[in-house]
């Protein structure tokens, strides 16, 4: 009997718990999840400074969002008559409903921030050059999908915040010349934010966008493996071409254990945040009354700040140009210098340009978040 159970267990894993280097390589190659990793890895790549763990944290957050999102879907009803009330049910009736919603909300906010940090780090290390050009574009697509998931998810609670943030956002789309109004009606399925928009956003948020996201994540990880892991400076030992003569360490346990620790830390932090901070829920959406001020979530407040000057230039042109610029970056900057180092002398100008872009985004976001009061008037003391 015991042997029979053991045979079932072994049929799942095929390779036992690895006890030496040879067995660990075998384990890495024979398991679906583990074979996403290289069997052996450069010790430098394991250091925190090599990655800031940003890609892994983004992936862990995406998985947390999937799990908490599925839980929320059991109670959430995507209809204007019921959506807000189902949020109240989650808050007051469903056991751990508040915790689940809080975790989903804070993981979403964190993912926007961490994916941006990931992009910053890869930029600094020139991780978009050579064979990695297309993978950078995939990364930009993932960044955009993260924002699109946030935007579609933002409408679902159907409170005042949600309704007006999406009204403002979809009217920015209408500022696109010629096709703008068609584009807006394509997103909303109607003339204004209502039943059709809520259903469309729900389907995009829960099915279409996550499916596309995880497909691209698969491509993204595959390409990282095929490109030989992290970019390596030509000055590093064994750097440049190949790993000849350089000591590699087995990914099991060195990489896998570190990943587990990061996963645990992210999960514990998220749980602490979800216990500590409550996700806001304002009054039910009221199309006849706009709250004052009406603000989007913080990561869109930079765009809202720009849109306050001009709906087209601030709300459409600058975001679209930024996205296009980021996507084309690896095909415009093809110099091979300074790869694999964070602040190389050879890339002063490129680094300064990117820093300027980030600073611009940060300043507009901070101004929009903290220094804009009722009727979007400047106020010097943040409330």
């Amino acid at each position, binding site marked *: 009997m015991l042997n029979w159970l053991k045979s079932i267990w072994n049929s799942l894993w095929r390779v036992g718990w690895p006890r030496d280097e040879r067995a660990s390589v075998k384990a890495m190659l024979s398991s679906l999840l583990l074979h996403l990793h290289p069997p052996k890895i450069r010790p430098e790549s394991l250091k925190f400074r090599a990655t800031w763990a940003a890609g892994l944290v983004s992936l862990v957050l995406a998985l947390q969002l999937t799990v908490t999102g599925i839980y929320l879907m059991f109670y959430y009803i995507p209809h204007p008559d019921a959506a807000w009330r189902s949020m109240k049910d989650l808050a007051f009736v469903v056991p751990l409903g508040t915790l689940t919603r809080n975790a989903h909300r804070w993981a979403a906010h964190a993912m926007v921030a961490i994916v941006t940090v990931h992009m910053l780090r890869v930029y600094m290390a020139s991780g978009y050059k050579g064979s990695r050009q297309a993978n950078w574009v995939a990364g930009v697509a993932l960044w955009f999908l993260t924002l699109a998931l946030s935007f579609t998810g933002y409408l679902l609670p159907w409170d005042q915040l949600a309704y007006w943030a999406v009204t*403002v956002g979809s009217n920015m789309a209408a500022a696109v010349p010629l096709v703008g109004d068609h584009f807006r009606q394509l997103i909303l399925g109607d003339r204004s934010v209502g039943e059709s928009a809520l259903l469309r956003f729900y389907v995009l948020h829960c099915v279409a966008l996550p499916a596309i996201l995880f497909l691209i994540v698969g491509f993204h990880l595959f390409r990282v493996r095929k490109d030989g892991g992290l970019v390596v400076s030509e000055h590093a030992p064994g750097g440049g071409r190949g790993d000849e003569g350089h000591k590699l360490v087995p990914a099991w346990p060195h990489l896998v254990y570190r990943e587990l620790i990061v996963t645990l830390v992210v999960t514990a932090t998220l749980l602490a945040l979800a216990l500590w901070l409550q996700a806001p829920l304002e009054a039910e959406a009221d199309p006849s009354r706009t709250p004052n001020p009406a603000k989007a979530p913080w990561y869109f407040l930079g765009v809202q700040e720009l849109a306050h000057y001009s709906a087209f230039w601030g709300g459409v042109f600058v975001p679209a140009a930024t996205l296009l610029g980021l996507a084309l970056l690896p095909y415009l900057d093809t110099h091979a210098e300074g790869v694999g180092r964070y602040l190389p002398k050879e890339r002063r100008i490129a680094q300064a340009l990117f820093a300027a872009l980030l600073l611009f985004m940060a300043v507009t976001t901070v101004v929009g978040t903290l220094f804009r009061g009722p*009727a*979007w008037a400047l106020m010097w003391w943040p409330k």
Partner: protein
Amino acid sequence: MDEHSSDRRNFLGKLGGAALVALSAEAAWASLRFARAPVSYGPSQRRNLGHLDRFVSSRVYVGDAGLFVGRDSKGLSAMSATCTHLGCTVREAAEGGFVCPCHGSTYDEHGHVTGGPAPRDLSHVRLLRDVRGNLIADLSQTVPGEARLQVG
């Protein structure tokens, strides 16, 4: 393989490629067309604002239609409360006129832009009267600001 058979393969390959491109274009068009179906369960564009007796003061706000109904010596007019910048609902400003809470666009009492990012004046919509004496607004038809519905 002789010369002709390789030509034929080449041709068929190109034909297949062209068919794939055509299929993709058709699928993209079909998807867009599907998503833009003329079905809407939103409220009707023609709104009953209530009996005419309701509109005796110089300005009444009808929230669910998003309209300010004004009355002067010439008759009734209906001005949209939807800001022309990004679609928030404007409110009456303390100092007269209207202000948008989203990005601070300001309008005078006739809906002309006086400040902020709004690109156009507030629009006016057509007013009608039904047989029971109710005021009807047709949100799909804009009219000049001077247009009035004459009332007794």
